[in-house]
């Protein structure tokens, strides 16, 4: 059949070719006539007439409207113009538009008519004989004529070019937005093929993509003052809507899905054009616009199917329904990898924000990406590699990604329906786990990324069975490795991830025996880890709280009621029995019954204070703490220690080191009952703090030695550091309240003068006290007596005419209260021994690598110490040492974020603690330690803020930078004032020259 068609068509073609050239010539001739007429025109009406004469040949014109707008003499000419018959007009129009006539005409219209005449056209006439030249033509051809004009760069002030451009823009709005020209373009690509011959040259991909390029470039090319409809947002939105509509319409016309997809999708230019345009729009950064138009349509389509078809039949149903063909092949026709990726990402995020169900999302993704996923390696890599390992989506998206790309099966409600695992499944899991388990990954990637990959691994593991896990090579060991390296982390969230994976793994291996690594175990793992979606977290936590609260409250009430009932029943029973017994007894022993009343109960109140034998001697405490086989004794000793130490008895200084050693070595976990471990741990902690505070030097001596001793373990080292931190804080806040000073006057002993009168002490020659009455008060109400006396002037004192006044109210000032920071005097003892040897690796001590948690805590403690002596001179003395420590590369660039965080903290503390004047003097004196150290802080924080993977670190670095700039400002002020003072001093009279002024010798 097709061959036959071809034969006849080729015959027709030969005939048509001849006819066409004739018609084309005719069209060109007509255009030339119009052109010359316009050139010769003196009046607008002449132009109208000329255009009208051509217009009637191409499309139907309502001549009456045109004639109504022109002068009488042209009216007849217009009305008499020959109207072509419909059939004639059709062939002429074809030749006009698909030949060279239209480009000529378009140029004529735009460059001649627009600048000179168009403004004089009445609106009705314009819509009749000017606009239709563009509207009636093929959208693609028109576009090709219009856009290049916008490209031409006229000078901005050129009014002619401006006019032309605005006209082109108006036409663009009219043709492509109002009259849905973009939709027509899509359909035209099909027609192009059917236009035998005329537009055959457009049948190659390049021209299609050129058209797409032109279309997508419109918003870039328009002038700034153009209509807002052509702005990229509204234009792309409209374009997307029209493109989708056109493509859907188009695919409905196709005889079968095969035409649309299978055989040669490259031939299907319509869909190719849509895909190209989309990718160009996406390249221009408007993915959201495309996605937000696409997703609702696909969602509705998929939803309409989901209710009526099962998962198994859906693929075939989709492939046999014309509505879906466009969507099935869209992504496949897109050539631009980048835009496909952006599109997929946009769709995933859009779906997540719409809260669609897993099944809906799966089918939407299947519809769009399944074909290319199966055929194209890059698409598969995008899903399996990029979307799982590099990007961070919400957890729901991750589930869909895994369903589509790893499980390759639609999610089912039943859950444990056995499904044939795709061949890549185990490989993918192995790949994921191998990355997940790497220590470098834990150290260097952001928390969100870690949570995301953890969720991916966990969701995959949920699908595994015991046998599969055992057969998959390396997965077991890798998971163990990953879990163990996460459990060591000081960051809570990372440990949580480890326990989540461990729980999932243990469930896969043995569902009846889940492994809970943390205390608050719930059966359902929350893969969001509170970082992957902020919004949802709030909801889940509140609901979880409710969940926890709900069953707890009613249960005890109920049981209490039950219990109460039982008790009352029992007691009734017992009462009955005992009553009976008493009666019997009374009958039997009448004589005794009277004496019963003599059994009057004593006070039955009880407390258990005496049960706990209290320690009163420090030596006893030491002895008790050293007996691990007497847990009660240790417990009680822990109870008593803090109180005894705080009382600071005389012998404390002799015993403190023993107590400290005993406390550090005592094992609370062994001693305390299960639930009381916390409290005894706390007591031990508090006792140590009290020791460090009451006799710092002795205790610190022991503690700092123990810190690096191989006889203690990590937990004890951490305890020591924690205790030192707290002690430093406490010492810095010590309040010393001076005793109320004895009043001078004596209340009881009768002396010659009343107690309230001030004493006679004073310089020789002072006059007697006179009572002064307060202003406006009678003697009775005057509670405070005021006295005054005359004092002789001191030698060399100028008389200013003041008298000293005394009153009872003044005595208040004698009770003073001030807080004094006691820490600075111990600061060196706290910090210097602790800083020694942190980088030495000894037996059981390896702060830089294995025990990085201790290192982090240590640096934190040192930072706190700095803070505690802020603005004291000691801070300036100790800061260089601390700076030296944190500057060492092993510390400041430690792979663990935890250590870097403490380094930043310590750096901030140094900045806070240094007095600006000290910094200033250091600068003047040329003290290298401080200035280079501070500069290092700035550079380091800049570096961290820019490039650290840990978000917490980055934000701390920002704070640190801020502090640095503050101290820099303060210092510069201090320097300025120093300069000024120097300058002032120069001008001072020579009398002051013999005073030594600081910095005076510096120039």
């Amino acid at each position, binding site marked *: 059949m097709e061959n036959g068609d071809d034969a006849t068509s080729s015959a027709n073609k030969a005939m048509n070719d001849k006819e066409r050239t004739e018609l084309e010539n005719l069209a060109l001739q007509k255009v030339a006539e119009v052109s010359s007429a316009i050139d010769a025109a003196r009046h607008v009406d002449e132009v109208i007439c000329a255009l009208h004469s051509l217009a009637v040949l191409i499309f139907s014109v309502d001549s009456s409207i045109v004639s109504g707008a022109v002068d009488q003499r042209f009216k007849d000419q217009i009305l008499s113009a020959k109207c072509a018959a419909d059939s004639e007009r059709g062939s002429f129009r074809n030749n006009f538009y698909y030949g060279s006539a239209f480009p000529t005409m378009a140029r004529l219209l735009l460059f001649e008519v627009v600048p000179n005449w168009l403004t004089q056209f009445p609106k009705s006439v314009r819509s009749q004989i000017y606009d239709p030249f563009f509207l009636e033509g093929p959208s693609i051809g028109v576009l090709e004529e219009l856009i290049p004009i916008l490209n031409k760069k006229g000078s901005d002030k050129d009014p002619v070019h401006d006019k032309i451009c605005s006209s082109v823009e108006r036409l663009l709005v009219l043709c492509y937005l109002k009259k849905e020209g973009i939709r027509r373009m899509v359909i035209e690509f099909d027609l192009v093929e059917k236009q035998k011959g005329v537009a055959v040259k457009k049948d190659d991909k390049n021209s299609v993509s050129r058209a797409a390029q032109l279309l997508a470039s419109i918003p870039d090319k328009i002038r700034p003052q153009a209509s807002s409809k052509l702005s990229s947002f509204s234009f792309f939105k409209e374009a997307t809507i029209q493109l989708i509509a056109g493509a859907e319409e188009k695919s409905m016309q196709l005889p079968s899905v095969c035409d649309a997809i299978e055989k040669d999708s490259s031939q299907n230019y319509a869909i190719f054009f849509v895909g190209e345009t989309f990718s160009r729009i996406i390249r221009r950064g408007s993915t959201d616009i495309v996605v937000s138009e696409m997703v609702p349509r696909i969602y509705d389509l998929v939803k309409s199917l989901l209710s009526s078809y099962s998962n198994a039949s859906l693929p075939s149903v989709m492939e046999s329904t014309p509505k879906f063909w466009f969507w099935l092949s869209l992504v496949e026709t897109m050539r631009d990898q980048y835009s496909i990726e952006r599109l997929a990402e946009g769709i995933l995020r859009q779906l997540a924000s719409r809260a669609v169900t897993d099944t809906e999302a799966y089918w939407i993704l299947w519809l769009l990406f399944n074909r290319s996923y199966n055929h194209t390696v890059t698409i598969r890599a995008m899903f399996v590699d990029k979307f799982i390992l590099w990007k961070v989506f919400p957890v729901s998206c991750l589930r869909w990604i895994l369903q589509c790309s790893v499980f390759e099966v639609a999610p089912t409600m039943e859950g444990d329906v056995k499904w044939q695992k795709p061949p890549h499944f185990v490989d993918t899991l192995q790949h994921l786990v191998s990355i997940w388990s790497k220590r470098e990954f834990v150290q260097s990637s952001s928390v969100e990324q870690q949570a995301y990959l953890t969720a991916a691994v966990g969701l995959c593991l949920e699908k595994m069975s015991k046998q599969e896990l055992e057969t998959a090579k390396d997965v077991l060991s890798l998971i163990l490795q990953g879990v163990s390296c996460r459990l060591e982390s000081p960051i809570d969230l990372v440990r949580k991830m480890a326990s989540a994976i461990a729980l999932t793994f243990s469930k896969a291996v043995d569902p009846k025996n889940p492994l809970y690594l943390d205390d608050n175990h719930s059966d359902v793992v929350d893969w969001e880890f509170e970082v992957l979606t902020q919004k949802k977290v709030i909801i889940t936590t509140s609901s979880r709280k409710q969940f926890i609260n709900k069953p707890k409250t009613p249960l005890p009430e109920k049981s209490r009621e039950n219990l109460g009932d039982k008790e009352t029943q029992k007691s009734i029973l017992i009462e009955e029995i005992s009553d009976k017994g008493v009666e019997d007894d009374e009958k039997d022993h009448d004589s005794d019954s009277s004496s*019963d009343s003599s059994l*009057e*109960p*004593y006070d039955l109140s009880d407390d*258990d204070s005496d049960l706990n034998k209290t320690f009163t001697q420090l030596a006893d405490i030491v002895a008790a703490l050293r007996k691990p086989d007497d847990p009660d004794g240790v417990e009680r000793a822990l109870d008593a220690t803090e109180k005894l130490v705080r009382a600071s008895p005389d012998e404390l200084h002799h015993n403190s080191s023993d107590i400290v050693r005993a406390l550090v070595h005592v094992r609370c976990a062994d001693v305390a009952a299960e639930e009381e471990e916390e409290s005894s741990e706390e007591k031990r902690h508090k006792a140590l703090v009290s020791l460090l505070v009451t006799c710092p030097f002795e205790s610190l001596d022991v503690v700092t030695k123990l810190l690096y001793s191989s006889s203690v373990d990590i937990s004890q080292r951490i305890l020591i550091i924690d205790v030192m931190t707290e002690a430093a804080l406490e010492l810095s806040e010590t309040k010393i309240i001076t005793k109320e000073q004895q009043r001078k006057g004596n209340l009881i002993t009768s002396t010659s003068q009343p107690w309230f009168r001030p004493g006679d002490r004073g310089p020789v020659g002072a006059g007697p006290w006179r009572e002064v009455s307060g202003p406006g008060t009678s003697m009775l109400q005057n509670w405070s007596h005021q006295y005054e006396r005359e004092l002789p002037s001191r030698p060399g004192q100028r008389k200013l005419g003041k008298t000293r006044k005394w009153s009872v109210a003044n005595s208040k000032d004698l009770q003073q209260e001030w807080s004094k920071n006691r820490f600075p005097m111990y600061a060196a003892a706290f910090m210097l021994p602790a800083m020694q040897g942190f980088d030495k690796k000894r037996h059981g001590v390896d702060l830089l690598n294995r025990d990085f948690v201790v290192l982090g805590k240590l640096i934190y403690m040192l930072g706190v110490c700095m803070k505690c002596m802020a603005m004291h001179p000691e801070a300036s003395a100790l800061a260089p040492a601390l700076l030296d420590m944190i500057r060492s590369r092993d510390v400041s660039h430690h792979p663990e974020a935890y250590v870097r965080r403490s380094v930043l903290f310590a750096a901030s503390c140094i900045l806070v603690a240094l007095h600006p004047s000290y910094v200033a003097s250091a600068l003047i004196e040329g003290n290298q330690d401080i200035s280079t150290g501070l500069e290092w802080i700035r550079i380091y924080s800049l570096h961290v803020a820019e490039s650290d993977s840990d978000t917490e670190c980055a934000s701390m670095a920002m704070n640190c930078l801020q502090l640095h700039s503050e101290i820099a400002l303060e210092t510069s002020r201090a320097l300025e004032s120093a300069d000024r003072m120097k300058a002032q001093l120069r001008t001072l009279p020579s009398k002051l020259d013999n005073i030594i002024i600081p910095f005076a010798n510096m120039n």
Partner: protein
Amino acid sequence: MASARPRPPPDPVAVLRGHRAAVMDVSFHPSRSLLFSGASDGELRVWDTVRHRTIFSTWAHSGAAGVYSVATNAALGNRIISQGRDGSCKCWEIEEAGLSRKPLFTIRTNSYHFCKVSLTKTPKSVQTDGGDSTEVVNLMALPGEDPSQVELWDLTAVKRVMSLPQNCNLNLAGQTSNQRGMCMAIQAFYTYETQVLNLLSGYEDGSMLWWDLRKPEAPVSSVKFHSEAVLSVAIDGLCNGGISGGADNKIFMVALDQQKSVCTVRKEIELERPGIAGTAIRPDNKIAASAGWDHRLRVYNYRKGNDLALLKYHSGSCNAVTFSDDCRQMASCSEDTTVALWELYPPKDRI
């Protein structure tokens, strides 16, 4: 009256110090003002309860064994039984200046357990009516080599009379007795009406058995009130009721119905802290006392079961409490090496 604040609990009238180790048991002489106490270091002391002095001291059960229990009885007269942890019981003559140098006889029981020896208790009326105490066989009850078995020894003939449950039906009863665990407390007594020797024994699992020695094959009644080991059993003066304390936090006052052979709970007392090591009922049945691990002595109205006093003196866990036969004094002993004498609710003197 009701609004008046209750009196503060009394202090001990005397504290007898002298022991160098935890005092395990105390016992009053039935007629003379003497008190016997045994300590865990093996020392047995005799105290004058009027002058509050030690009269005599001897190493009754030497070495690490220690004295576990001392027992006196009117039927035994001027003699005293001491039970040691060395697997023997010794009988001593009470002389003018204390005890005999050497025990009258030593019984090798070969039993090592936690149960104090029990002499038979005779109802008050019988004791006062009769005078023909010769008819009453002097028996001593304590767990045997197999600590789940109770052995009865004739103290006049110095030989073992019986063991409960009997060996003959060991298979049957052995099983049940094994389930009950060790015997932890024993009290032997004559019933008020029938003058038959009965025995109440408490076991490790909290159960108590009531035996009638005429029918030694099986216990008359078996009850389980305590949730943990029964540590002490005391029978009242009329021998138709008693009190039991255990390792749990409960004290039970029980009634023994001779006719129906049932043991019922008369009053259940719940305590704040668990562990009652010793119980006693005053011979006049007015008050009962318990010695607790929580260093406290508690005194109850025996008839009504309500609390009367909470005595806090001891600074170690209390091991035993006992009343004198004249009802005037109470003695308690404790791990803190002291013996305390109390005078509570003294009976009115009657002519």
